[in-house]
Each structure stands twice: as C-alpha cells, then as structure tokens.
C-alpha cells in the first residue's frame, strides 16, 4: 500500500538506509521520517524563527506576571501588539511595540531564509524550483499585510498582533474599518480562488483515490506516459462536465488557482487605505450593491442616496 516499497527497490540512495519509521501510519501514508537536511539556510531560518517564537512566548509570560497557569488559561488571548499609531514607522520602546517590531523583523528574515532553503534543496535534488516559486505568492500576501500596507499607511499599528485572538480581531476590524471587505473585488477574487482550491482539491483527491488500483497516483510517470488509471480519471470528468485536464495540466490548474487567491488577496490589501478607504462606497459607486440587505427577520436599505 505504501508507495515507499517501490522506491526502496529502485534506488541505492544512502537516505533509504538511514531511516526511522512510524509504523502506525502504515496503510495511510509513507512511514519513513527524515533524514532532514539542515544546511546554512536551515540554520539561519530555524534560528530566526526560534528567536521570533521565543520573543512572542516570553512576551506572553511577562504580560501574565510569569504565572504558568494564567499563561495557559489566557494563551488564546495573549498577544504581542504592534506599536501605537503615534510612533509612526519609527522604532518604538520595547514594551510599547518594540518587541512586535523585532519579532516581525526576525519572522520576515526566517521566511526569506526558508524560501532560499527550499530553492536550494529543489536544485540539489535535480527538480525544478516550482515549490519555492509558488511559495513567493504566499510571501507576497504576508508582505502585503505585515509590511506594504502598514508602510503605505505610515504606521505599524495597521498590522496584526502576534496572538491567536489578535489575528481574528485584526481580520474583523480591518474589514469594518475599510467599509466591509466583502465588497472588495480583489477580496472576492481571492475568496473565489480559496473556495476554488478546496473544490479542486476535493475533485483531484477523489479522482485519484478512485483510480489508485490502476496506478493513477504515480503522477510523474503518468504525466509522461498515461495508462488506464489516468484514462479513467480523465474520462469521468469529460463525461460528467465535458472537460478534462491531464495528469500534468491538473497540477497547473491547482497551482494557478492558489496563486490567484494569494496574489488577488495581496492586491486587495495593498489597495486598501490609501487608494480605496471604503470598499462599500466603492461598491455603491460601481452600482453593484443590492437595493436591500436581507437580515433574517427584515430588510434594510443598503446605499444612502
């Protein structure tokens, strides 16, 4: 069942002899753990990420008076908040947001080192760097939220705090502050991409699982020379909806729809504030707001004249 059997027989790679297995997931997924590559970029990424986590967790502990029970009880609520708007883009005192600035700086560095690490590992393993290229789309969204939008507004206060509830509060308040993000057309596109990625994931996963006995899951071989499993996987969608992808092109669709979600989301955040301060007013000007908003028990008028 585990596909590992095949590769073990095929290859004399030393990494197949230095192995540690988790037996209990046999029949669900591959069982081999590691060997993990560290390397200089790995050391840098892990070190800076570790410092970010240390700063955040130590900040949490300090804010509950080093009390472990309060630390656990309030873990979801604790947050390292960005500096107040009065500090602008300048460095704030440590306790008034300086820790947030340092933690975010280290986090950004660790993400960049992680990107370089993935890139170098792709080259080292003789495959194209597609994974790190797609990863840059996610980094673009991160940069839009934590760096580009705050700089465009002239204050780090626009960025989310480092806390579990803080991110939810930020997402909620950000939408309301800029006039309801549901009316932001880039947000719409981003949600389309995100819901679409869930749909595509279910379709692809289901199609391959349904044809595993015919080896459709061996996608790299199938992309070169398709066999019965891939033929059936293509025919079900051709017969259902008149269109089918191939073993290669379905993965292009997959990567493209996630890149759409990330890039459209990032553009939506970047345009918010300086360029469009109120997305509901934008929608009223564009004439796409329904006449009434239905609110469970009754209707209220939407756009003011």
């Amino acid at each position, binding site marked *: 069942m*585990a*596909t*590992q059997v*095949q*590769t073990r027989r095929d290859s004399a*790679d030393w990494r197949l002899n230095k192995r540690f297995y988790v037996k209990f997931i046999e029949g669900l*997924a*591959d069982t081999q753990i590691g060997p*993990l*590559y560290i390397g200089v970029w790995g050391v840098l990424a892990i070190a800076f990420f570790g410092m970010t986590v240390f700063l955040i967790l130590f900040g949490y502990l300090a804010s509950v008076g080093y009390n472990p*029970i309060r630390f656990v*009880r309030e873990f979801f609520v604790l947050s390292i908040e960005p500096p107040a708007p009065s500090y602008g883009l300048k460095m704030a005192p440590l306790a008034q947001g300086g820790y947030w600035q340092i933690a975010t700086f280290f986090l950004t560095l660790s993400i960049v080192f992680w990107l370089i690490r993935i890139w170098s590992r*792709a080259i080292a393993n*003789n*495959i194209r*760097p*597609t*994974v790190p290229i797609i990863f840059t789309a996610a980094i673009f969204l991160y940069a839009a939220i934590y760096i580009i939008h705050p700089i465009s507004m002239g204050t780090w206060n626009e960025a989310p705090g480092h806390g579990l509830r803080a991110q*939810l*509060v930020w*997402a*909620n308040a950000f939408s309301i502050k800029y006039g309801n993000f549901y009316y932001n057309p880039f947000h719409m596109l981003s949600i389309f*991409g*995100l*819901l679409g990625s*869930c749909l595509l*994931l*279910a379709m*692809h*996963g*289901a199609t391959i*699982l*349904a*044809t*595993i006995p015919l080896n459709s899951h061996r996608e*790299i*071989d199938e*992309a*070169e020379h398709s066999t019965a499993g891939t*033929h*059936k996987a293509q025919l*079900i969608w051709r017969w*259902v909806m008149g269109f089918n992808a191939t*073993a*290669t092109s379905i*993965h292009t669709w*997959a*990567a493209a729809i996630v890149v759409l979600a990330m890039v459209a989301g990032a553009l939506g955040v970047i345009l918010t504030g300086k360029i469009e301060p109120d997305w509901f007013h934008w*929608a009223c000007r564009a*004439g*796409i*707001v*329904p*006449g*009434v*908003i*239905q609110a*469970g028990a009754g*209707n209220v008028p*939407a756009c003011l004249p």
Partner: protein
Amino acid sequence: MLSFEAKYRREAIDTPAIPLLGLGLFKLWIGRFYVGFWGIIALLFGTIGASIWLWRVVLLDVTKSGNPLVNFVRGQIEAPSPDIGTHFTTDPAKGFWWLVVVACATITFISWMMRQLDISRILKMGYQVPLAFSVAISAWVTIQIIRPILLGSWAEGFPLGVLAHLDWLSTFGYRFYNFYYNPFHALGVALLFGSGFVLALHGATILSAAGKKKEGVTDHNINTFYWDFLGYSIGEIGIHRLAFWTALMCVLLSNLCLVLSGTLVQNWSAFWNFWNKLPFWSGF
C-alpha cells in the same frame, strides 16, 4: 473523442443497468457528455430553476436599471417572509419563487451526484467523486433546508443573488456577535487555508518533476526533496488521501459552525464564558 475513449464507451455499454436506481439507463453520449437517466433529470430541473431565476431577476428588471448585467449582479430572489414559517406558500410576494428555485436546485445537485455515481460505476472506478460531491451538497442542504427547518422559518435561508448572498453572509456573522469566535468556523477556515496550502504544494511538486523531464528524474527525487526540507515525504497515495480529507472536513466543519448558530448558540463571544470558569483554574 480522446484516442482511448472508444474502448471505454464500448465497455460502459456492456455494463448492466440498475433500473430501480436509474443507473445505466439512457446510456448514450451527446458530444463529450454522458446523458443517462440522472443527466436528463438534472438537465430538466436545472433548466427550470435557472430559467425561473433569470426570468425573475434579469428579465423582470428587479433593480429598475434596465441593464441585464447590473440585474445579474445585484438582483436577487429574496428568501420567504418569516410569517410563513416552514409552510409552503403560493404567494409570489412571500417567497414562492425562492421555494421553487431551491427545490429545483436541490434536485439538480442530487441528480448530478447520481450521474457521477453512474459514470464511476460504468468506468469501474471507486465512488470517491460522488462521495466528495455529496459533501458539497450537504453544505447547501444544511444552509437552505436543515437549518431553516430547525429554526422554524424559511426566512433563515439565504437570498438567491450574486451580491445578495455576500450581504447575507456578512450579516449572518454579525447576527451572532462575532463569527470569528466560532471555534468550528475557525477550524473550517483553517482547513480552507489548509486546502490552498496542500493544493499549492501538491501542484507545484508534481510540476517540478513532470512535463519536460530532466534525465533520470523520478518520484524518488520528490521523496528526497521532501525528506530534505520537511523531514517527511507523505507519498503519492498519502497526498491524495490528505487532499480528500482536508477538503471534505473543511466543508463538514463549516456545516457544523452554521447549523449551531441560532439553534444552540446565539452569541459566539459569550460562548467562551465557560473558559475562565473551568474548575482547574476558576478563582485563580
């Protein structure tokens, strides 16, 4: 037709029909499309529902703009008024057309799933595709049928319109104070982002080795790449299992977060009041 398609069509025709379920009846193709008994039902009810929506929203010019595109985006068929409860009404002002379109859509979706089941059966493959689609239908049924029935009013359903349903969604969150504090919503969103994450990784991974192949590149290169950078390679079967369950659990948890709102939980902020009252740290 694809180069290998004729053989599978011949095999499909030899598969016996199951008349009571309608599977394998009307086994014929129009162009690329398989027809089948459930295809006819889906086409019939889909056409009725879509025609009613286009007639009510676009042809009747609900927004008084005279512009079909504006009507398409802004127009809506409103959910029934609260005073009819979960009864049927023939009064167009009280939501008759909403009831008809929702019924047509539900029948169409289920027929489409049966059609996928039919095609899976004649292709002799597993039934994961109709299973996954039935989970997608469960979201529609939960929001438009189960939850309104639990709350005793069709008015709880969402209006049928492109932007109108965004408004409904936005308002829905605030009706229960703060949907961001709904833990099942949080899990659903985490799995939605997770879907994007898994899909991007899987798509990019296959693209990095498939297509115009470098000499000697196999799935072993993918395994060593993932051991190197994550310390684990889930494998070719494992990734598709992960994909399937990430996407399905995302929808199922979203169903739970919606069906609990208004039935058992009225205020997702106050829902968390239990947290500080847990026995092991209460009074601390």
